[in-house]
C-alpha cells in the first residue's frame, strides 16, 4: 500500500517548456512535504519543501503547490532545462517525526 502516490512515472518535455509533477496522499497527519531531486549515480537532494500551513512555495524556476482539502501537491518547473533531467521524489512526513515516506518517483527527461 503506497502511502504517497506520484505521477506520472516518467515524463519527457522540450527545453523551455513547463513540467508538472503531482502527488497525492491519504494520511491527514502528514504536514511536511519535500521534493527531492536525484541524478544518476547520486543520492537524492532536497529541491524544495512546503508545510501544510502554506499552499505555495517558490524557489526560482521551481514552485510547489499544496491542496490540503484534496490531499494533493504538485511541482511545477518553468523554463525546463536539460540539466533538470533527473528523478523527482515527493515525500511526506507524519506529524511529530522526521521519518519521510517517499513516492515512487518521476523520471524527467528534458529534450533540447
Amino acid at each position, binding site marked *: 500500500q503506497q502511502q504517497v502516490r506520484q505521477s506520472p512515472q516518467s515524463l519527457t518535455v522540450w527545453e523551455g517548456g513547463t513540467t508538472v509533477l503531482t502527488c497525492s496522499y491519504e494520511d491527514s497527519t502528514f*504536514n*511536511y512535504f*519535500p521534493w*527531492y531531486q536525484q541524478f544518476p*549515480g*547520486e*543520492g*537524492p*537532494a*532536497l529541491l524544495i*519543501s512546503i*508545510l501544510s500551513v502554506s499552499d505555495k512555495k517558490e524557489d526560482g524556476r521551481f514552485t510547489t503547490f499544496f491542496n490540503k482539502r484534496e490531499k494533493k501537491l504538485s511541482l511545477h518547473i518553468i523554463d525546463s532545462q536539460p540539466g533538470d533531467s533527473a528523478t523527482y*521524489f515527493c515525500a511526506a*512526513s*507524519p*506529524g*511529530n*517525526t*522526521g*521519518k*519521510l*515516506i*517517499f*513516492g*515512487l*518517483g518521476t523520471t524527467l527527461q528534458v529534450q533540447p
Partner: protein
Amino acid sequence: EAAVTQSPRNKVAVTGGKVTLSCNQTNNHNNMYWYRQDTGHGLRLIHYSYGAGSTEKGDIPDGYKASRPSQENFSLILELATPSQTSVYFCASGDLNWGGPSAETLYFGSGTRLTVL
C-alpha cells in the same frame, strides 16, 4: 557543506554471507537513516537512529541490523545476506530546518550498490 560518505561504493556478496555497509557524516546531525532504493518501490526506510547508541526499526527492518556507535557513524548489517537484498542502499543524516520536528532535511550519501549472488 553537509557531507555523508558511504562505503563501499559497490559490493558483491554471496548468499548467507555477512555484509556491513558503513556511513559517516560530518554534519553533527543527531538523526541518521538507512534506505534502500529499488525500481518500483522507491525509497524505503530500513532503520534509523536518533543519536549514538540508539537504533530504531523502520518500515522494512527484517533481515537487517543497525549500529550507531558514535554521532558520526551508522552501519547497516546483513547477517545472512539473501539475493532479495540486492539493491542500492542510501544513508542519510537529518537536520531540523524549520517548522518543528517534522520539517527535517535529509542529506544523502551517494549510495552503495549491493549485489548478493
